[in-house]
């Protein structure tokens, strides 16, 4: 990093952090590595970051050179990564007795980096008998099970476990081509580790084997350096790891984009519609690849929209006639085609889809449009497309803003649900009163105690809902599952359908059952059903269960957050009275009733 670059980024950090992030990303991509990471890290640390992660790394080997690279790669993605490292080789004790370091470090995430050469050297070098390799795999899986279960019992923070990479070459000779015992055993080990992590709550695989294969095994590790300083990776391997691990962190922690907004001219097709006409624009091979990448994102639950400066009728006709190599007009949930500037179009799209500007990603071939959006709507994630359209599909696939580590049924159903939402909005706009609108929806709510299959969705709702969440108490899958078997607690779920379709599980009440007075620990609704009086039906369900158990009163608390203002009046609006405790409200069940709204048919299970 020369003096000019340093001065330019320092100035941008003062005046334009969005441009500073882009400038730092370019410097990193030009020469990623140890020296560039050291030079960039102070500036990257000054970027405003939406996510902070105190990461504690337990390791069997030297990892220190990875950390600055990882911090830069994560920082450029919007994650302020604050790593700490466990003792060299003391991972087993730290995993089995995690109390002290957990209390001291207070990590947001724990990462396990164990090198196969340390754990089971027989799997990495020289010829070995099948029985010996099988025993090594069984022993290692047994150890990993004990270590991970011990750690999971002590903390609910997310865990990430690196799997194991096949060594380069054929240490057992070419007979390994005929009898690939070592690679079979390693595949078995990684399969076992994946099953182990899948059985633990919020425990994820960091696929070292995939990253090594992608990088190339030759040049992944240098045995002389491994022996001298305990570092299992070369300089280029460290760059590949930093990028892959930052991507994984982003998939788990964010920041995420829910909507991809696409430009048309020059982006989805080649040519300018206004100048070339429909006959003059074409979807050439790189744009076919781009459309395929966009269609793949849509299949993973990402919403698509169009923002284009064009004549609307002509552009829609072109979408139907020309663009549809991989995409169709109906794939785009919102379309802003006209002569508004792109930032205004993006704001309109966010409003129409009911998401924040920070949920949008913007795809446009024109550097000036990208620059304008960065300036006028800095919350939007602007994808910095390369000059060569052949790179665009890969750029989109590599963008971790769209990554999730696990897709729920609700994630996959998001585009269909959004279309239903648009139908509802159209109905609301034409109804002569709110009551007419509610009645015309023909809503049906089913309120029932939580079942095992709903645990992941309920935990996800406690972690993701902000606006209609009265206490914002976040819970892991394990914490929700624990309530299932606890007689002191009852968790009620609300599923909603209406004339436009099934919204799924959209309401949760977590209740502490005192024999005389039930306490509402959590009351939340998915943002997709806010404004339809569903909370009244949910409270009616709570009262139904509390009365049946003989409770005389219901007590709830509202804990204000930066985002839950829409829920602030929930208790007073439903007849609750303030108690002496701040933010606490109470309903006397012996004298007061709270029926469900007449326009929602409610079923209790």
């Amino acid at each position: 990093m020369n003096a000019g670059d340093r001065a330019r980024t320092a100035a941008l950090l003062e005046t334009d952090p969005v441009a500073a992030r882009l400038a730092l990303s370019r410097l990193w991509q030009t020469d990623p590595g140890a020296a560039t990471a050291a030079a960039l890290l102070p500036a990257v640390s000054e970027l405003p970051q939406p996510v902070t992660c105190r990461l504690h790394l337990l390791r069997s080997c030297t990892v220190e050179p990875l950390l600055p690279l990882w911090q830069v790669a994560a920082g450029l993605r919007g994650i302020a990564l604050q790593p700490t490292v466990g003792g060299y080789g003391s991972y087993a004790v730290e995993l089995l007795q995690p109390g002290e370091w957990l209390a001291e470090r207070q990590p947001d995430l724990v990462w396990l980096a164990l090198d196969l050469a340390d754990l089971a050297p027989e799997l990495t070098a020289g010829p070995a008998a099948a029985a010996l390799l099988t025993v090594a795999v069984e022993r290692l899986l047994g150890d990993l099970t004990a270590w991970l279960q011990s750690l999971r019992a002590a903390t609910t923070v997310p865990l990430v476990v690196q799997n194991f990479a096949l060594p380069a070459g054929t240490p057992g000779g070419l007979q390994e081509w005929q009898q690939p015992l070592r690679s079979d055993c390693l595949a078995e080990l990684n399969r076992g580790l994946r099953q182990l992590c899948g059985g633990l709550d919020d425990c994820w695989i960091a696929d070292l084997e995939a990253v090594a294969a992608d990088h190339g095994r030759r040049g992944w590790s240098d045995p002389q350096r491994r022996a001298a300083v305990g570092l299992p990776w070369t300089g280029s391997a460290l760059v590949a790891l930093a990028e892959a691990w930052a991507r994984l962190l982003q998939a788990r922690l964010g920041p995420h984009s829910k909507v991809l907004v696409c430009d048309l001219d020059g982006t989805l097709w080649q040519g300018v519609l206004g100048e070339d006409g429909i006959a003059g624009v074409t979807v050439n091979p790189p744009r076919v690849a781009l459309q395929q990448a966009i269609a793949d994102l849509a299949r993973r639950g990402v919403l698509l929209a169009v923002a284009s400066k064009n004549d609307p009728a002509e552009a829609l006709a072109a979408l139907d006639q020309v663009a549809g190599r991989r995409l169709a007009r109906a794939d785009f949930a919102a379309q802003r085609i006209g002569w508004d500037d792109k930032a205004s179009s993006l704001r309109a799209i966010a409003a129409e889809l009911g998401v924040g500007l920070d949920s949008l990603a913007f795809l446009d071939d024109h550097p000036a449009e990208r620059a304008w959006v960065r300036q006028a709507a800095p919350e939007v994630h602007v994808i910095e497309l390369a000059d060569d359209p052949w790179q665009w599909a890969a750029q989109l696939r590599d963008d971790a803003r769209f990554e999730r580590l696990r897709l729920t049924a609700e994630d996959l159903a998001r585009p269909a649900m959004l279309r239903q939402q648009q139908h509802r909005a159209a109905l609301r706009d034409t109804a002569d009163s709110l009551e007419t609108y509610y009645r015309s929806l023909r809503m049906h709510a089913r309120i029932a105690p939580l079942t095992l299959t709903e645990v992941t969705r309920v935990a996800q709702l406690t972690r993701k809902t902000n606006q209609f969440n009265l206490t914002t108490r976040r819970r892991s899958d394990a914490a929700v599952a624990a309530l299932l078997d606890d007689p002191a607690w009852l968790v009620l779920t609300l599923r909603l359908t209406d004339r436009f379709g099934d919204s799924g599980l959209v309401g949760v009440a977590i209740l502490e059952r005192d024999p005389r007075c039930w306490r509402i620990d959590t009351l939340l609704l998915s943002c997709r059903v806010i404004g339809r009086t569903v909370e009244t039906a949910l409270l009616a369900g709570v009262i139904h269960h509390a009365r049946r158990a003989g409770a005389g009163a219901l007590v709830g608390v509202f804990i204000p957050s930066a985002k839950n203002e829409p829920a602030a009046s929930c208790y007073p609006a439903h007849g609750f009275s303030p108690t002496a405790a701040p933010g606490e409200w109470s309903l006397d069940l012996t004298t007061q009733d709270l029926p469900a709204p007449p326009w929602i048919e409610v079923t209790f299970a």
Partner: protein
Amino acid sequence: MPEELLLTVRRALADLLRQPLETVTAATSPANTPAWDSLLHLNLVLALEQRCGVFLTPDALPEAFTAADLATALAARRG
């Protein structure tokens, strides 16, 4: 010693030490640079490996060495 390799070494060192390039010279060494510890040296070797495509092993350097010695060792490895 090729000047181009010396410049590469000085640039990598300047980045790692977060110092202006002009403060890092051919005579800069672990002995006269307190921040040049074993971790910084490992990072320097990794950076040179990437920027020059040459693996430097510990035995490639004399016990007391300077930036210029590093450039010479890189040149020798390149052949």
